[in-house]
């Protein structure tokens, strides 16, 4: 398995997804060698880790990367040219490494590992599985996708024997924009490890005590995630219910835009920016919210929606997300439909029964969305290829 990041050194959903899937596969008896481009200080017992940049026999020069600089390195927000070089260099290294490891399948996660995946496929003469967690089209919202990245993606998808997008919405993007042969595509939805989080100490209780309701945005603040639609929906919500606070958790290149936009609309006093949070802090914010809103313009999966549910928070997700295809007990709206979003946010805030049924039913529902279920789909693909 070829990956680019693993938690806790992850920039977003990619590392989490690779980790969750690999763990579930190993429980089902798959032996995994997970190749990462750089040495990370990780302790994983269910699979073998290999770092491509170091001589893994002597391990003389361990590269230490802090969470912050790693995040900078793998950030999707702006693409440094050496990011592409990184992907190509990874391929060079993997080409040399591959022979040392027996493997029946080469499974590559996202474009940065596709050149490496192709190299391994050729060296080993084994089938290549290209897992697609996001595409250049999702990341840029379709505006000026980086042509080099697009070419790398296309080549990887073409050479792959099986292509696994994380949702049906993305499957369509792969067919329309990447011309991938539909017959080799198999949708594998992501899973969640902990479908029910325990109750934590309340956050933002000062506001709640004053009778304020909390609407949460959590995720990278980038074009793809639709932050501008969130701000505009907030404006509409506040016209009908002024006792609402909008909490924004995450960071990204549109954070300033979001601030200015909220200021321009005269509602900046109703916004709280928490920055990037993880672990219990993140769960506490989820738990404090009356509703989690994911207004993504283009969201291959949208694991944050499941995280919110695991924290017993009702969710409103954009219809342009993979997760909306599997969630029945969630509110849904088109990302551009500000009115509908505001309508639904207001309904959850004013009708207690709605919020209680959503909480209740969705927490039952997500117990089915385990990584084990995803692993079953992947195993099925493996069996067809071997």
């Amino acid at each position, binding site marked *: 398995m070829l990956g680019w990041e693993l938690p806790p050194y992850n920039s977003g959903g990619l590392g989490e997804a690779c980790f969750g899937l690999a763990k579930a596969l190993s429980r089902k008896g798959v032996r995994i060698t997970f190749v990462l481009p750089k040495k990370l200080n990780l302790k994983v017992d269910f699979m073998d880790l290999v770092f491509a940049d170091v001589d893994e026999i002597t391990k003389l020069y361990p590269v230490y990367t802090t969470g912050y600089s790693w995040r900078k390195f793998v950030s999707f927000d702006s693409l440094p040219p050496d990011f592409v070089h990184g992907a190509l260099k990874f391929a060079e290294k993997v080409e040399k490494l591959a022979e040392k490891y027996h493997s029946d399948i080469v499974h590559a996660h996202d474009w940065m590992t596709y050149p490496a995946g192709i190299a391994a496929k050729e060296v080993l003469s084994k089938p290549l599985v290209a897992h697609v967690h996001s595409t250049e089209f999702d990341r840029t919202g379709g505006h000026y996708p980086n042509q080099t990245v697009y070419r790398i993606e296309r080549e990887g998808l073409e050479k792959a024997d099986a292509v696994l997008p994380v949702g049906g919405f993305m499957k369509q993007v792969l067919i329309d924009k990447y011309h991938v042969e539909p017959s080799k595509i198999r949708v594998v939805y992501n899973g969640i490890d902990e479908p029910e989080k325990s109750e934590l100490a309340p956050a933002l209780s000062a506001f709640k005590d004053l009778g304020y309701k909390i609407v949460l945005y959590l995720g990278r603040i980038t074009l793809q995630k639709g932050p501008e639609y969130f701000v505009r929906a907030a404006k509409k919500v506040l016209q009908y219910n002024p006792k609402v606070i909008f909490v924004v958790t995450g960071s990204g290149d549109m954070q300033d835009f979001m601030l200015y936009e909220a200021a321009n609309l005269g509602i900046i006093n109703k916004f709280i920016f928490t920055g990037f949070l993880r672990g219990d802090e993140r769960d506490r914010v989820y738990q404090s919210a009356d509703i989690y809103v994911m207004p993504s313009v283009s969201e291959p999966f949208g694991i944050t929606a499941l995280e919110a549910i695991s924290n017993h928070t009702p969710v409103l997700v954009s219809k342009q997300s993979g997760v909306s295809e599997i969630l029945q007990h969630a509110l849904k709206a088109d990302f551009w439909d500000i009115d509908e979003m505001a309508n639904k946010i207001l*309904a959850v805030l004013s009708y207690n029964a709605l919020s209680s049924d959503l909480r209740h039913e969705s927490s039952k529902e997500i117990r089915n969305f385990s990584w084990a279920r995803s692993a079953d789909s992947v195993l099925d693909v493996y069996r067809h290829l071997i």
Partner: protein
Amino acid sequence: MSSICLYFQAHQPIRIKKYRVFDVGQDHKYFNDSSDTNLNNKKIIQKVAAKSYLPANELLLRLLGKYKEFKVSYSFSGVFLEQLEEYLPELLVSFQKLVKTKRVEILSETYYHSLAFFYSRSEFESQVDLHKKKIKEVFGITPQVFRNTELAYTNELAQWADKKGYKAILAEGWDPILGWRSPNYVYKPTGTKKIKLLLKNYKLSDDVAFRFSEKSWSQWPLTADKFAQWVNAINGNGQVVNLFMDYETFGEHQWAENGIFNFLESLPGELLKHPDNDFITPREAAERYPAMDEIDVPYIVTWADTERDLSAWMGNAIQSSAIKFIYDLEGEVLKTEDKDLISDWRKLQISDHFYYMCTKWFADGDVHKYFNPYESPYDAFISFMNAANDLKLRVNQISIDKSKAN
């Protein structure tokens, strides 16, 4: 002797359009969707009429002409008839023609196809009276047999109908209330004096209503000849076979392509081949056959879902809060004496609104999804509550205006 009692339920709800919170206080028309979606009431009823009501009426009229022994019965909700008057007068005429044969009986129900009996007795009675008036006005007759929405039945309901002088009342022939007894006899409800209870033979009814086109069913394809043999097998072991189903079974739930009209066309002939069979209406069944035993139903039994209860209407928090909201307004709404307002309030009691909010997906989910014009039960709830809140504002406004005038 087996008497076959065919009763068809004809109902179409008046669906609430996508009604957003921004419409509250602005737009008082809740039911006038004119889009291409399934919230467009006119579009739906015209579609169902073309596929089902019109061809079925035509066929039944022909069958009534051909077989002098043939009889059928209907129950029409008031909101169904109202919509026919507005959008499909020709269909109304065709129903009137059927009734003129004098071999078509009409049953009594609530005008608004509501569950009012369980929330407000006085409102329930008002709706039964409104329905009676409507039936008299349209068909010139007064129904003598009562059926409640979704066949929702309890001892208490039977006792009410008994006091009101109804000859019979209908219910589901559900095994737990029957025990070892057969649905193919007439019974007496617990705590009543004269009224008779007719129980749906759900096995035979559902063979037609639900399983007819089901290719995985061991008895598929179902022919009229085979079905008649099943009915004949009851001879000597029952007196009346109650086949109760939605009228939309013919052409809408079961498609013409799958042969449902051919089945219906051959059915009377096949049933009448057996000399001991005949057709009967619910009122006639009550007059002809004695009550064999007493049936005790202390809790609500309906004809819906595998549970035969009302959980698809009032099983979750959004449903119960929506129902409570609407019935809590009763006193204030009626006090306004505002005709339009009262009518809108009653339209919000149509049981289908609550059915659309059902989140019980897993066992009966497919059926519920099929009938749900909203994208999700939560969307149904949101539009309903927004509209209900607008109605409440109207009520308040009228009270304010009134007190100013005084």
